[in-house]
């Protein structure tokens, strides 16, 4: 016999925390196939009516890195010593940063984009948020290919630790997904959130040592020390390019933080998701 579903006011609060966690995992498990379908939909719909298709994943990092190279050459902005060709340094950083930035942006917009569907069909909204990050993961992989091309071009040999690269991306994905859960709900109710995120992402990119190495002193150095994104971008980059890094502890703590944030946020999402269909 089928299970009884009961809907009451504040439905999600009726059960204990343990039950809610089990519910969340069951939902994710049951909707793997839906997540895949939604991911396929996003991917196909972006590339089907586009000439450049997946090449767009190259364009944004190339333009941003190019801008920095021009600024650097003309002496307007001095990039510190990177030890390796700047473009390789910057593209690696951008690949990780973009994974975070595009991930959080598309996740935040995912519920609004599917608004007409949400108010008509009862389906797993977590799947929608999770699937929206697939796009960023594909772009990330494409940028890794770009990186490989640059390695060949400059005649560099990557460290063997490059095989951990997919693993390094996990904390960033969890971090972006966690915030994406919260922002997607808020954005569903107040559209300003989407704009704020878009602006903040640009701001944070320049605040985080992505396109430049972390300065030794000054305000930016201080901020970077408390910026989890600094560790999550710089540690993998150091490892891939030089094989060693002195910020393992920072990375480790940031990774734990991202796991923590992911769970807190998906929990809050679970408690509040039906509020979006009321007001989207």
């Amino acid at each position, binding site marked *: *016999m*089928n*299970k*009884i*579903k*009961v*809907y*009451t*006011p*504040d*439905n*999600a*609060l009726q059960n204990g925390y343990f039950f809610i966690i089990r519910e969340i995992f069951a939902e994710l498990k049951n909707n793997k*196939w*839906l997540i895949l*379908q*939604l991911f*396929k*939909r996003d991917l*196909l*719909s972006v590339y*089907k*009516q586009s000439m450049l298709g997946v090449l767009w994943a190259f364009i944004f990092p190339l333009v941003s890195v190019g801008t920095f190279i021009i600024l650097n050459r003309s002496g307007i902005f001095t990039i510190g010593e990177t030890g390796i060709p700047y473009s390789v340094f910057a593209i690696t950083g951008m690949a990780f940063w973009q994974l975070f930035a595009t991930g959080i942006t598309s996740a935040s917009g995912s519920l609004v984009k599917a608004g*007409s*569907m*949400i*108010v*008509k*069909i*009862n*389906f797993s909204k977590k799947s929608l948020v999770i699937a929206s990050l697939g796009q960023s993961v594909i772009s990330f992989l494409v940028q890794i290919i770009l990186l490989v091309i640059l390695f060949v071009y400059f005649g560099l040999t990557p460290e063997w630790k490059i095989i951990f690269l997919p693993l390094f991306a996990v904390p960033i994905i969890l971090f972006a997904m966690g915030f994406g859960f919260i922002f997607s*709900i*808020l954005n569903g*109710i*107040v559209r300003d959130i989407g704009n704020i995120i878009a602006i903040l992402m640009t701001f944070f990119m320049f605040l985080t040592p992505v396109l430049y190495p972390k300065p030794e002193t000054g305000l930016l150095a201080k901020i970077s020390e408390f910026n989890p994104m600094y560790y999550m971008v710089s540690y993998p980059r150091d490892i891939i390019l030089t094989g060693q890094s002195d910020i393992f502890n920072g990375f480790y703590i940031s990774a734990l933080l991202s796991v923590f944030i992911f769970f807190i946020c998906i929990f*809050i999402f679970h*408690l*509040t998701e*039906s*509020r979006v*269909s*009321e*007001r989207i």
Partner: protein
Amino acid sequence: MEKDVLIRVESTSKKYCRSLKRSMIYGISDICRNAVGMSSKSHKLRKNEFWALDNISFELKKGEVLGIIGPNGSGKSTLLKLLNGIFWPDKGQISIIGRVGALIEVGAGFHPLLTGKENIFLNGAILGMTKDEIRNKFDDIVNFSGIGEFLDTPVKHYSSGMFVRLGFSIAAHCEPDVLLVDEILSVGDINFQAKSKKKIMELLDKGTAIVLVSHNLNLINNLCKKTVLINKSSPCILGKTSDIIEKYREIVWGNNKNFENYGTGDITIGSIDVLNNEFRKSYDFRKDEQIILKFNYHAENEIEDPVFTLGIFNDDGIQVTGIRTDNDKIMTGTFYGRGSFDLIIEKNFLLPGIYSISANVYEKRGIAFYNRVINISEFKISGSKGVFGYIDIPHKWNFK
């Protein structure tokens, strides 16, 4: 829950907010409260909020069809969304057993750039079908929708008919335990409508419970044993379909009853009395009973041979019949001052329902009018016989 009960709705209410800005603030505050584990105190109305759906209760068993009727804006769609679990009630409780399917705005999850085939898998997944389920039913879905050669065409190039046919086909093949239907039976052309009705009947035979929202009272009357009437100003009532339909007609009638009076005023129809065969004023008639309409007029000036016409309208506002003195080749004579005359309808062939009377007085050629009165009187034909169309013509069957 009791045996075979699939849906139980207990004094359920849902509120909405009139102001968008406030709705945003309330939304954020509800989210914050829920996020820290506090109740949103949804049973209380805040400023600018109102009950869109108030205190609804009913039960639905396996294999039953429940009709839901109500005037526009009474909360029928909100009720379906609550049953579908799209949002939670603000008061009361809804319990549901089994998979809920919805034939509400089918094709809502389609992506225009994806092909029909891709959309079948996507939409199926969104509607809660598993991969194997869709694979197994894929051919049935395609055959039923009749999209055939367009399977690999992006759905944005589909005609609107093909679009809804495919959407209906996917939704109908979900094999739900409870099916929510919102006016869907009019999807596609006449052949597809026949097919979709047959499909719904098949689901019903398999034990699916159906909640049917419709303005088509004939359909409700024929399909549903029990019906819920929801209406803003009065509590919801659940009862035998024919009784509920009668109540609904009275409500809708009350909303639309506007007397209108136009014309030059040379001659006016002051009132039309509806009389029974004993010449007493009456409202309630049986089918076939004699109805006498007594026209009370007042002619300011002397009028020669005016043409009198009468229209009888049913509760959908459709004219059931029109009677004219000029069609009947009657010279009405000279009118001056106050007076009255009768129109005798010896046998009415009208279906049960409420009827409204409108009348005209034209000059003798029947073009320009002196007076036009709309909704001047009304009467009711009682009974519960379900007949399609506007009148019940006398008939006999002969099977040999």
